[in-house]
């Protein structure tokens, strides 16, 4: 079965990203397909590569990057939400005249159309938030 995942909250403040990650991992291990993981609202904060959590804590961002690498996941940050919160990829940083970019490995920035498509193309859209 094809699942799409929507995450509306950032890491550490809410459990949403943890639950979404563990659900996604369990679905993949069962042989299901994850069509896309869409990060919306504060959820875009799951996509910064500049976080440095304590070593004895889970690394929420790295965990997504690694899962993406292992299963070739499509991790998409909403562009409007990302720009408001300072999440930029190399192209956007250049276009906006910023001196740095911070998007983590495996993530890409795209539009809300990607969420609509994720809802249409998948059999189930799972929403995790506060």
């Amino acid at each position, binding site marked *: *079965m094809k699942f799409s995942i929507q995450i509306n909250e950032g890491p550490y403040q809410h*459990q949403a990203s943890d639950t979404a990650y563990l*659900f996604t*991992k369990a*679905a993949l291990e*069962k042989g299901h397909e994850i069509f896309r993981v869409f990060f919306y609202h504060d959820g875009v904060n799951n996509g910064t590569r500049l976080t440095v959590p304590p070593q004895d804590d889970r690394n929420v961002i790295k965990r997504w990057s690694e899962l993406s690498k292992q299963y070739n996941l499509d991790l998409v940050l909403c562009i409007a939400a990302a720009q408001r919160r300072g999440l930029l990829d190399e192209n956007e940083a250049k276009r906006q005249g910023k001196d740095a970019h911070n998007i983590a490995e495996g993530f890409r920035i795209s539009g809300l159309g990607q969420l609509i498509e994720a809802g249409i193309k998948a059999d189930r859209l799972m*929403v995790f938030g506060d």
Partner: protein
Amino acid sequence: MILHTVNKSPFERNALVSCLGHAQAGSSVLMIEDGVYGAIAGSQVADVVNNSLATVKIYVLEPDLAARGIAKEKLISGVQLIDYAGFVDLAADNTTVQAWL
């Protein structure tokens, strides 16, 4: 049928009671995150949960119970424990998933 997921404690917000009020017979309700507090026997909302068990299947995510130190013996009888693999199965077996955020 619909799988409803509830992630709020019933002592913080009205999501669980509201969800149980809307859930149709034969549908499933899964308590996750702080929602697992709704599965404890003898609480203010336990009667509502108990009455719903006659028509609705109610599940609770065991890792979230464990994370909050809630022993299985404290749960309302009839509430079923599942893990993340069981969560995936529930989502697949129902035609729609509604998150009560």
